[in-house]
């Protein structure tokens, strides 16, 4: 009986780890005290792409192709120390369990920024940004089907 309980616990944990994604992290923390949360749905992304008066360009970088290929955006930010620690751990577990690749990591003046992507040679299916400061953590998760070449060109242009 103990063995069965142990096996059930292991399976439940592994299934919950597999089920973890940007949405589940957002659902878990968005209503917590000291956490600011933003969710933009696929439908809203379609609307953004359709409205002609929106100038989808920032500092000479045309974001429109990327914005139109997004299917969801989850942003969580907190300055509550307890939530910061939990959010940081959960986000780290999430990128590990989903096998996100580390795109870049920068540490400067007490701030650590990590960026991860998931996808294949042609497509980027997700981007996660985790920025940790001493007393603040920000988590940005983008879901979509972005053309890798276009995505990399946009990121390179943004870095200039």
């Amino acid at each position, binding site marked *: 009986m103990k063995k069965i309980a142990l096996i059930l616990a292991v399976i439940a944990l592994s299934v919950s780890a597999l089920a973890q994604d940007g949405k589940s992290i957002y659902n878990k923390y968005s209503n917590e005290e000291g956490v600011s949360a933003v969710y933009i749905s696929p439908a809203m992304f379609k609307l953004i792409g359709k409205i002609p008066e929106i100038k989808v360009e920032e500092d000479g970088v045309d974001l429109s192709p990327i914005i139109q290929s997004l299917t969801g955006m989850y942003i969580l930010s907190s300055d509550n120390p307890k939530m910061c620690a939990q959010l940081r751990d959960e986000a780290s577990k999430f990128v590990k369990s989903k096998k996100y690749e580390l795109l*870049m990591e920068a540490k400067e003046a007490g701030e650590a920024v990590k960026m991860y992507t998931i996808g294949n040679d042609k497509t980027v299916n997700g981007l996660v940004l985790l920025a940790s400061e001493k007393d603040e953590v920000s988590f940005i998760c983008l879901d979509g089907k972005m053309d890798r070449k276009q995505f990399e060109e946009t990121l390179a242009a943004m*870095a200039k």
Partner: protein
Amino acid sequence: MKDIREIEQMSLGELEAEALKEAGTADFSGKAGAEDLIGALARAESLLSEEEAPVLRTRRVKYLMGIAAGLALFAGIGLSLKQKTPKDTFTDPMMAYAQVEMAFNRIGEGIKKGSGAVEKSEAIIQRPMEIMNNTIGK
């Protein structure tokens, strides 16, 4: 006829031999003989089934564990599917776009930090390279 304690201490082989011996010595002719034969077979079967009990128990535990694992898997899948879709934070696409833009600015800042660190390290690497080149040139 052996008592129950002796039977319990016997191995599977001994039990089979005993059952066959009993079957061999019994007179199975006539109605009483047939009843003896059925009785001997029933006893042999019960003795053999007692010997098989641990194997059956193991099988049953494995079977139950399989069912439990399947149920847990289904429960997990069910829970993940049941996960509610969050409500859009903005109803105005312009506001949503402003937020997307802010998010991309944040991503851009992160990339700049990363490329800035690369430039710094390049500059640090460049200095010893220059010294080495100058030394070799002289």
